[in-house]
């Protein structure tokens, strides 16, 4: 069953077209990875899905429902069904870890604080931060902050999780703790769209890999195809360069 469907999507920054005729499907419980050179539009695609940048043409569908990005209610609805973790952690610096995780369920969804806090503690324990509830973001390492950001996204009980290079700002030693967290989510059947430069990880967790370049989807296929037997010259070039590193 299709969970997230992107059809002929186009988006511009000013007069500059950044995404053109993007087509992409993510099935329920599936993990799809977006790869591609810097500036190819991967982050922009996630921003469009979340309604941070209105599309010029095309459609985004969630569970078959088309999102109208001019409609505030639709945008709000999508933000409660789709959660995102950005490249930079974007935690609220003025709140401690527990509040970072609980504020949206309490203030946006209006759920009882006590109940949300219990869930948040479980989530934070699961990402290995059960003892950091009262710490502030600037007292945590990059990997810890990124895991708080993941917990904050999960606290909203999203159907779909978007991850944008969540390990790229981290020291190599910290990458694994974050990847482990994502692996756990994968085994639980969370639908995910992941932008990543960790090719070994992409190959391991994804059922499908989408290669983007210059605002276009160049090639889509299972990891085996994209990494071992790419069909397009542009993909071969990119994969060749990346795997030689």
């Amino acid at each position, binding site marked *: 069953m299709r969970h997230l469907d992107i059809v002929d999507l186009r988006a511009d920054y000013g007069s500059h077209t950044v995404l053109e005729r993007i087509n992409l499907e993510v099935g329920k419980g599936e993990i799809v990875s977006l790869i591609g050179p810097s500036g190819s539009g991967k982050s922009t695609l996630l921003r469009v899905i979340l309604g*941070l940048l209105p599309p010029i043409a095309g459609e985004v569908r969630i569970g078959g429902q088309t999102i109208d990005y001019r409609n505030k209610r639709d945008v709000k609805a999508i*933000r409660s069904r789709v959660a995102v973790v950005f490249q930079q952690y*974007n935690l609220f*610096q003025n709140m401690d870890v527990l509040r970072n995780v609980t504020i949206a369920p309490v203030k946006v969804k209006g759920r009882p604080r006590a109940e949300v806090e219990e869930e948040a503690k479980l989530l934070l324990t699961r990402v290995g931060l059960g003892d950091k509830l009262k710490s502030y973001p600037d007292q945590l390492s990059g990997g810890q902050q990124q895991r708080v950001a993941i917990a904050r996204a999960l606290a909203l009980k999203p159907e779909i999780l978007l991850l944008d290079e969540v390990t790229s700002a981290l020291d190599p030693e910290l990458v694994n703790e974050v990847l482990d967290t994502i692996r756990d989510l994968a085994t639980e059947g969370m639908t995910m769209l992941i932008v990543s430069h960790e090719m070994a990880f992409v190959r391991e967790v994804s059922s499908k890999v989408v290669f983007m370049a210059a605002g276009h989807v160049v090639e889509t296929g299972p990891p085996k195809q994209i990494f071992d037997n790419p069909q397009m010259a542009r993909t071969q070039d990119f994969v060749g360069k990346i795997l030689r590193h």
Partner: protein
Amino acid sequence: MDITLQFGQITPHLPYLLGGAWLSLQIAFLAFCGGMMLGLLGATALSFGPRWLRALVGAYVGFFMNTPQLVQIYFIFFALPDAGLLMEPYEAVLLGMTLNAGAYLTEIQRAGFTSIHRTELEAAQTIGFSLMQSVRYVILPHIMKVLFPPLSNHYILMTLGTSMAAIFGVEELTGRALNLNSQTFRSIEVFSITAGLYIVITFIATTLLALVGRGFFRARMRIL
């Protein structure tokens, strides 16, 4: 030369000086509050206003930050009556200090605006916050944390700056010290006590502000 200090002659006048100190505190507080409002308007105009308004606010800030405060108050006190605006010394000082504070606080608050992290705001949007919720839970606490220390510093400077009012005959702490000096001729005693009172005032204010800043806004402030 034989100097004997005779604080005993001054101590009976301590309540008189304290009364002056109270007036100093009032002037600083009122001018600061007025200046904060002007500053908020100014910073908003500079950050989001149309070009002509930005130019106007820029000229205001430039004028008040590049001329001595004393000259500004003289101007209000002596030049404005010619234009039909008569003012008591106290009012002229208060207006001058408010306008001056407004210029500095415009600059300080604008720096607070520009320090807002766009990415943090984006995160607030993506978890479903409305604009009002973003302002309340993310922007304001951030601005308070960044701005509390420089605002506190400026407040302390303004408290000391109130001594300028003495020149216009306002009987705040320095004004009363001058009166007392001409009555008793115990200059060293009078002015050392006066300096001591200023130190006590600024010490208390600094400590209180640092406690509030650290306690409520996680601002980085030293407690003496």
